[in-house]
């Protein structure tokens, strides 16, 4: 069952309350999104850890309900 953009943003925000989340639908099929997540929680963490935090927020949907999520992360200026 594909996911909706706001559903993805909701999961991320519930795990990272200060996060600013921008989601782009890449294919219009609810399965291929790009997400840019900015949060102070990423400060000092290597990219792999930052991405793992976002995947954890999606509670196992990544690679299942959500086939592809082109993810970029950033720390607020």
């Amino acid at each position, binding site marked *: 069952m594909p996911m909706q953009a706001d559903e993805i943003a909701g999961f991320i925000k519930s795990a990272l309350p200060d996060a600013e989340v921008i989601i782009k639908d890449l294919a219009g099929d609810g399965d291929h999104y790009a997400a840019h997540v900015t949060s102070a929680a990423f400060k000092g963490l290597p*990219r*792999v850890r930052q*991405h*793992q935090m976002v*995947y954890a927020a999606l509670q*196992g949907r*990544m*690679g*299942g309900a959500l086939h*592809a999520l*082109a*993810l*970029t992360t950033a720390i607020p200026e």
Partner: protein
Amino acid sequence: MSENPVFDRIKAEIDASPVTVFMKGTAVFPQCGFSARVVQILSHLNVPFKSVNVLEDAEIREGIKSYTNWPTIPQVYVKGEFVGGCDIVTEMFQAGELQSLMEEAGVTAKA
């Protein structure tokens, strides 16, 4: 021997080459856009690598995701260290960080 026999097989694949890529398809015939991009980037950087086709091994395909707590394929390993998937490899490449990582690891083939 770890608790998960698949982890030993995965570790053996990782240790078998300085650079290992768990991917869908093969380097010559990638069967997924994200895997193809990683192959492209490594080839562009002149980094030889061993590819493991997870489409031919369902056990490794699932096991690799819990091995590094990373839910997607492809996955790139340099000298046993998990570097990232397609997004991170692309981002590092664009930032020039991937080139220095490969040079520091001494895995770049002499042109």
